């Protein structure tokens, strides 16, 4: 599959932006500038970026609680993401949602979800809209390995299959749900075989290989439009704790370090160099740009006003 240089550089930039966004966000926590919690996807950047880079603006995604890569992949505005993280009026949700509920309907992101497995049935509905309106688009429903054990996973995949809807179910398998290793949450090695229960195609791939993720999503998009839903499992790893407060007693440092060697960003960087797609200088420039984008976003966010209680009732109901 031929991937344009432009696309490559765009994906690389977004992966670095995601990394820097979260590194910065983690610092803001330490500085006490954010309350609440956050779930970082450092180490998993290739999943959301790879998948979303293969999508059109009119394709929908349903994000997870660990979805900064998904949002950035779907071209969300980093300033507004950061402003939402800081709870500001200029944030995507006017400070009402926080980073567990970032959404940009204009870009096709129907929102992150704080309920594990909560978004999967919504993806079915979004795809139903697309099919009903005869749009040439698909919906991607993201969820984690842990979410695959919720009843919502089962019902959503089954219904999508029965209705032959254009949904691509994407399971980001980072091997853990909080402290629970997949070995303890399911008795199978390959999550993608669950697709068979629904007469659905399933595929598991290396989720740290952004090109592979991108290419398989392109193929899956075509498949899904023609045949109905498919389950794509992206095997990857979360480097940081589950959320802000996680002593990580459930895994070894060695295990984490092994995965750090498989860093999807570094790997992509090397690949781009090796294939002569970009020079070291060009990549360094993208790194700097990403860092600067994040600094700008923080400045934007910090200078933004706090939301006011006066109009708290505004968005409870639509007119």
């Amino acid at each position: 599959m031929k991937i344009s240089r432009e696309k490559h550089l765009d994906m690389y930039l977004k992966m670095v932006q995601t990394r820097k966004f979260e590194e910065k966000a983690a610092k803001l926590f330490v500085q006490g500038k954010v309350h609440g919690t956050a779930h970082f996807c450092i180490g998993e950047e290739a999943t959301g970026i790879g998948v979303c880079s293969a999508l059109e603006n009119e394709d929908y995604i349903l994000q997870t609680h660990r979805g900064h890569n998904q949002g950035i992949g779907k071209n969300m505005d980093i300033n507004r993401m950061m402003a939402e993280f800081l709870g500001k009026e200029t944030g995507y949700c006017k400070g009402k949602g926080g980073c567990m509920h970032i959404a940009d309907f204009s870009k096709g992101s129907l929102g992150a979800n704080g309920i594990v497995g909560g978004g999967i049935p919504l993806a079915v509905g979004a795809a139903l809209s697309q099919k009903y309106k005869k749009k040439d688009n698909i919906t991607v429903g993201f969820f984690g390995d842990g979410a695959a054990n919720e009843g919502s996973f089962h019902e959503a995949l089954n219904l999508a299959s029965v209705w032959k809807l254009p949904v691509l179910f994407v399971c980001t398998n980072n091997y853990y749900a909080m402290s629970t290793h997949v070995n303890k949450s399911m008795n199978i090695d390959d999550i993608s075989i669950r697709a068979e229960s629904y007469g659905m195609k399933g595929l598991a791939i290396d989720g740290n290989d952004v090109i592979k993720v991108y290419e398989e999503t392109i193929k899956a998009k075509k498949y899904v439009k023609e045949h109905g839903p498919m389950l794509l499992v992206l095997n990857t790893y979360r480097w940081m704790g589950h959320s802000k407060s996680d002593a990580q007693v459930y895994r070894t440092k060695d295990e984490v370090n092994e995965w750090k060697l498989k860093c999807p960003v570094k790997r992509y960087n090397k690949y781009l160099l090796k294939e002569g797609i970009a020079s070291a200088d060009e990549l360094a420039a993208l790194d700097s740009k990403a860092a600067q984008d994040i600094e700008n976003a923080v400045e934007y966010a910090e200078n933004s006003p706090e939301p006011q209680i006066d109009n708290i009732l505004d968005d409870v109901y639509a007119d």
Partner: protein
Amino acid sequence: MREITYAEAINEAMSEEMRRDENVIFLGEDIGVYGGAFGVSRGMLEEFGEERVLDTPITELAIVGAAAGAAMTGLRPVAELMFSDFITFAMDPLVNQAAKTRFQFGGQASVPMVLRAPGGSGTGAAEQHSQSLEAWVCHVPGLKVVIPSTPYDAKGLLKTAIRDNNPVVFLEQKLLYRTRGEVPEPGNDYTIPLGVADIKKEGNDLTIITYGRMVQRSLEVAENFESEAVDIEVIDIRSLVPLDKECLIRSAKKTGKVVIVHEACRTGGYGGELSSVIVDSEAFFYLDAPVKRVAGLDVPIPYNPGLEAQVVPTVDSISTAVRELL
């Protein structure tokens, strides 16, 4: 005016809205060729086809989740649960997703969907098929909640609910499906706004506030008391959320005596809310007597028909409560 049944009125409301707006679709279990467990959707599959009348597997969570997802993306789904008791499987998509979507995303989206489900006892369907669970959904900001008591209201309110840009839980009453009432001819496109109570009978001596199946029963009580020259006002709130508080307060001020009647079990029922709305208002100063609740006993609905009939308010038990206040 012609008379049709409550079930037919609901069918007409859905069908007319589907003719009017092609974004309206309808999904649920056995709603197609079967016509729904209570026959409400008979003929709709034939008219609108499989693309718009979507039979589902037994999958309440996905029905409501898919409806919410479709609603966020331009459709106006009407989802049916076969019995409202099965909402237990669908609380997440309803409460954590549909109801919160607009607010938590800062107003980016709206979720114009209707969740229809029949509630109530009286059919011998026992504990798991007879509940009146409206109080749960009334306690969820972002949802609207409607319970019609007549064919006329059912049709007018459902049309409004379908056109509403928010998730509306539309709780039908199993025992009313076969009851008949006057409804304008199909061409007559009337709607009834949400949030407006209906004074089914005016009166000056005492107010009964109720909804759903208990409206008819309360009217019976009011009629019986006429012979004793007791003039009872009967208010059907119809729309539980939003609630027509002014109407309740006005009536309480007028009569000074209030009895609240609902079939749902007493503890935690919506009657507490209705009572409090009155007592925490200026109407308090006009009250001559305690605000009484006549509600279902705090028991699951039993199977035996004799027992079943006695665990919910009866003409007798309502009358007793009224008498206590006189």
